[in-house]
């Protein structure tokens, strides 16, 4: 399980990515992160919730209450235009970050740790 500072800086990016297609709720997001990363990264509940709150106050996401077909009421989050813009910025930033860091990574190690 990864818990480095680098990945923590990209929590917002992951959450926004998962909200791009459709609104979602807390557990579903954390589950999809776990699945997409093959359980290499598990986001803690408190981390997820504080990310929601922070992005909500920044206007990147909006919350609304809804329920699934089986009727359990949940707080859903959906991405805003602001959020999409922010997501794009984060992606571009990552591209640069990756380019920069890759200069310093030895090839074999890169394969090994991929």
């Amino acid at each position, binding site marked *: 399980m990864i818990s480095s500072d680098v990945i923590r800086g990209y929590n917002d990016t992951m959450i926004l990515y998962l909200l791009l297609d459709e609104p979602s*709720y*807390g*557990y*579903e997001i*954390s*589950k999809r992160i776990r699945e997409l990363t093959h359980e290499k990264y*598990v986001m*803690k*509940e*408190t*981390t*997820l*919730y*504080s990310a*929601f*709150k*922070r992005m909500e*106050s920044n206007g990147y996401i909006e919350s609304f209450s809804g329920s699934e077909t089986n009727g359990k009421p*949940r*707080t859903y989050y959906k991405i805003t235009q602001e959020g999409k813009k922010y997501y794009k910025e984060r992606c571009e930033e990552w591209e640069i970050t990756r380019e920069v860091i890759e200069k310093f990574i030895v090839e074999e190690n890169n394969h090994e740790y991929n």
Partner: protein
Amino acid sequence: MNTIRNYLDNMFLGLPQTEDVARAKKELLAMMEDKYNELKNNGKTENEAIGIVISEFGNLDELGDTLGIKQVIENKTDIPLVTYEEAKDYIDESRATAPKTALGVLLCIISPVTLLFLIGLKELNVVHAKEDLLIAAGLVVLICLVATGVLHFIRYTSKLEKYEYLKFNVFELDYKAEEMVRNIQKQDDPTYKAAVSISVVCYILSALPVIVTPLVSEIDGLSVIAVTITLIIVALSTYNLINKSSYYEPCNVLLQQGDYSAKNKSNKTFQTVSKVYWCVIVAVYLGYSFITNNWRMSWIIWPVAGVLFGAIKAISEGR
């Protein structure tokens, strides 16, 4: 699922009850519940599911900034937590020692009874011993009773000493313990109120022998003996009151209500004043009585001091 709910309750213990905090708790619980249900559906055992959910919960510190309660979360560790076991022990021990400390008080109050009784008998001419001898005998009994009473005091109050901080410091009570204490208090409330009523009525009635005797008879000795009856009634009422208040007071201490509210605890001046006050009263009582030998009047200091104490307390709280 209850374990998870309890865990979350514990994490949120002592945080301010703002809307944001309540919402955060609700959301976190929903996420944990979803995760728990899915783990159970995937064939995990109860314990495994709970273990995973709790280990992946994270840390409330992360929420401090977002909820505007950073200050509170950082200071939270400064306040001691009283657990269920500690609370239970405190209540049990208070109840066990109450009859004994009450007995100590009773002995102190009735300590002058023999002395007064002998003086009364002498004045009634029932006994013909020398007055000095009677006074000496009465004083010996008085000193013995006070000594026994004080020993009782020291012995049994020192047993509760380790819990003293509960009375003077602000603490946090475990939520399970709080429930337990509230139930006990609710259950014993009628017993306590009945005991207080009986004692108060007895206190009032205790004045009767002293008031009525002079009206009925002119003989000096009788009024002295009337005082002994008054003292015995006062002693028994006080015993009852102290004993039964052990069913109530520890609950108030633990729930930090009444005299033990966080507000009163910060009022250190009053705590000091009250300690000094009672020491001074005891010193004045013993000093005056031994010097003037006026034992038949000096006991009046007790009801007067009690009422005066009430006034001092009211002034200190009104500030």
